């Protein structure tokens, strides 16, 4: 098979590109791969191959063919290979968004905290400074309480 980038040299590797969430397999030669910064396709690690998830049995080849992981463990099993895939899709390998709050009590406290903060901004807008000061104290106490519970939980884990 010819390289699908230059259409001249023989393809020596396959990589997957995602366009609009659809995975497309592209056969590529060594020269084009190097030009596109895809040299890892030819790194020794690639040749080792044969990675298999010990939890769900998914192989790296299956993943490359279907673009679906088998289970949550795959994310650790496929280690650096997967990290590079994520880097190429998202230009990042670190989640910075929301994390799930699994502790119901902490969750309730956080809800309460949001409500107090909302009230505080209303009080400030209305120039009711006595009330605002009171709310600020409450907020501080609540934040300490949440931090304490978090610490306690971290120790238990």
């Amino acid at each position, binding site marked *: 098979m010819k390289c699908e980038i230059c259409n001249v040299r023989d393809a020596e590797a396959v990589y997957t590109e*995602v*366009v*609009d*969430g*659809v995975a497309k397999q592209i056969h590529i030669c060594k020269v084009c791969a190097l030009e596109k910064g895809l040299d890892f396709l030819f790194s020794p690690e690639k040749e080792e191959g044969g990675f298999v998830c010990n*939890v*769900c049995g*998914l192989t790296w080849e299956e993943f490359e063919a*279907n*673009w*679906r*992981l*088998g*289970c*949550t463990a795959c*994310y650790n099993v496929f280690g650096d290979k*997967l990290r590079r*895939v*994520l880097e190429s*899709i*998202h*230009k*990042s*390998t*670190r*989640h*910075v*968004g*929301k*994390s*799930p*709050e*699994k502790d*119901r009590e902490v*969750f309730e406290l956080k809800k309460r905290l949001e409500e107090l903060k909302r009230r505080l901004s209303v009080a400030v807008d209305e120039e009711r400074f006595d009330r605002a000061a009171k709310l600020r104290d409450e907020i501080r106490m609540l934040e300490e309480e949440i931090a304490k519970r978090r610490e306690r939980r971290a120790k238990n884990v």
Partner: protein
Amino acid sequence: MFDIEPLKIFWLESLGEYSEVIISTRVRLARNISGYPFPSRATREDREKVREEAYSALSQINLFRGALWTEMDGLHSLDRQFLMERHLISKEMLSNGVGGGLMVRRDEDLGVMVNEEDHLRLFALCPGFAPQDAYIKVNELDDLLCLELDIAFHKDYGFLTSCPTNVGTGMRVSVLAHLPGLVVTKRIREVVNWLRESGYSVRGIYGEGSQVVGNIFQISNHLTLGKEEEEIVEGVERVVKKIVSREYEARQQIYLSARLEIEDKIWRAYGTLSHARLVSSEELLGLLSLVRMGVGLGILKGISLQDLNKVMICAQPAHIQKVEGEQMGPVIRDQRRATIIRSFLKGGIGL
């Protein structure tokens, strides 16, 4: 079986911002339950267990009091298609329903698909342009769900998903945009390219792998990892606002340069929709595009965009067959479609 009245869509009763251009906004969050393989690798037994767990958690949540729950396995293919036409389940669930489930509020503005590509796909729908509102709604549901279920979360990668394109926030914000102005003035290619280069996807009306019909485009964020949810929402807001203003410009330009021709086309489209006796799906979307633009330009008065939004959903094949309670061939369907369209447009303009 489920009871949804085919010709009523409550969440489309109101109109959101920029409704002449943006039909609706959807935010979805992909989530998985720890301890089970992802659906594509799960056995029937796994899928059923996931559904059981999901159902018992979802039914604890107040937001779903009185909501509708339906399981895909036993569902007739016509019913599944009906749910897809309403954007409540995806294409993927049409063909593979093993262990599939859907929890949705009566207003159909908030729901969860079970065992789609991921164990859970939480979604919120809003009319018009409302990424912020839709996110707040679905995030509230997510908060509550995280208390009930052990949701898979990785310290580096965030929420884990079956496809690596969704990992991190698991969030996709998408809007359905009606862009006839950009299509007619041939600027659409440039706009689509710009969107793609800026990290946004552009697809047809049913998302992944679907065709663009009726000048309707689905625009959504592409990246899900390395950005905060609010950042993703703001990003979509920013690009969509730009597109909306370019669309308004294009419409004005067409109108100024060929006013009579445009008015004629719009009135003819309205004439056909309000009088034709046979209308195919494809023809409907083409005509609807013109009528919608006519309403936007203020040429057609007395027709509501709400009705146009509803007719777009309710005149699809499975809807027509649900209304009639029977399966039917294409010609009869085109006839019933014409009747449904007239019933929506009735009370529009006195002729």
